[in-house]
């Protein structure tokens, strides 16, 4: 397993909701970063077509998705009959981030992702370390 999940980029081909400079900037930066990644033309279209690629993505929890709002992405997978696995892959929202921020989130090492940090916090809570830390402050 590499230090980063596989990256899946959605080009949102049919709408201008993701700014062109963000899409172009993310593709450019991922290309420069020297990582392997996958791109799909439009997750909405694939969901409506029940595209089997969605099943393959849903079966691989080790993926980071560059698309739009996580709630919408989650809904698209459910609509296609292939809900995202639990814990859910991280969805990087290119509608809200600029190209630099989105690429940084996509290339972030696995243990620095918000999901990993959340899991770590839960572990700390379970073991009681968090409470001790809390008492100290």
């Amino acid at each position: 397993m590499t230090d980063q999940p596989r990256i899946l980029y959605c080009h949102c081909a049919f709408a201008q909701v993701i700014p062109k400079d963000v899409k172009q900037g993310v593709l450019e930066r991922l290309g420069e970063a020297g990582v392997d990644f996958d791109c799909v033309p439009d997750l909405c279209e694939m969901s409506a077509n029940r595209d089997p690629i969605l099943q393959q993505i849903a079966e691989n929890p080790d993926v980071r998705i560059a698309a739009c709002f996580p709630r919408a992405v989650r809904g698209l997978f459910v609509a296609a009959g292939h809900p995202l696995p639990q814990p859910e892959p991280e969805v990087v929202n290119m509608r809200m981030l600029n190209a630099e921020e989105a690429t940084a989130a996509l290339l972030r090492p696995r243990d620095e992702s918000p999901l990993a940090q959340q899991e770590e916090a839960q572990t700390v809570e379970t073991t009681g370390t968090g409470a001790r830390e809390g008492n100290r402050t």
Partner: protein
Amino acid sequence: MIATKTGPRVVLYEGADASPLENSFRVELMAKLLERGLPISLARGNALNSTENKQIVLGNFGGRFPEADSSTAEFRDIAGLDAVAVVSLVEDVLAGTNDPSNTKRWKPWFPVIDFGRCTNCMQCLSFCLFDVYGATSDGKIQVQNESNCKTDCPACSRVCPEVAIMFPKYKAGPINGDEISTDDVRREGMKVDISALLGGDIYAMLRDRSAKAQSRFSKERDDERALKERQRCLNKLKAAAGDIEIPTEVLASLPSMDQIQSKAEQARQRAAQALAQQAKSTNADSGQ
């Protein structure tokens, strides 16, 4: 790595035996192929992933192709070509295949249900005149006919009391899938009330206007004036119910008033049947 079973995949290969692509060329080529509807993978590893699907492998090979299963991988040297020429080369390879991107594409505008919020009230099913919604055999709401949905019309999401209907390509939240605030829930509730203030429901208002318009048209029998009057009524409706955001072209393309009435009734019946089926399923589950 993604491997589509439905059509070929384009691989931009920059591993062993290939020179790297120039960055701006790579970006331009990827954007063009994606807009053509093709999934792409960028591969820098030394070996191509095996797949049961056809791969069109593009790269600056200089006459030496990497090792791969020749029954699925088709190599093309793109050295010296511009992005347009590469797309046309890929299209030549795809010609005659059953690649889904060869078929006519449509702007994928359709409702996506957030089942974490949906209460299965069937308001969307009874509201939509275009049979976009349906119900499963056990009475659960589902989107059945995505392509029937009218592009840029988010009206059903406006009548959903739970803010559970998203249009991912919509301009603003929460309809676009953005997180929902308590203000959003309150606002959506008010919109349903606005619809009610129009005289019970939006279709009742259309029917009233239809009756008035028909009495005038029966005297005049002027098709052009009838069309104009219908347009005027619909524009008034749109002004009164502006928050519902039905695009003018959708309003203009609605069927006749009688047909609207009939469609709305059918939709209501389907919603009622789905609710009855849902209740039956729930009772059966609780009886077990």
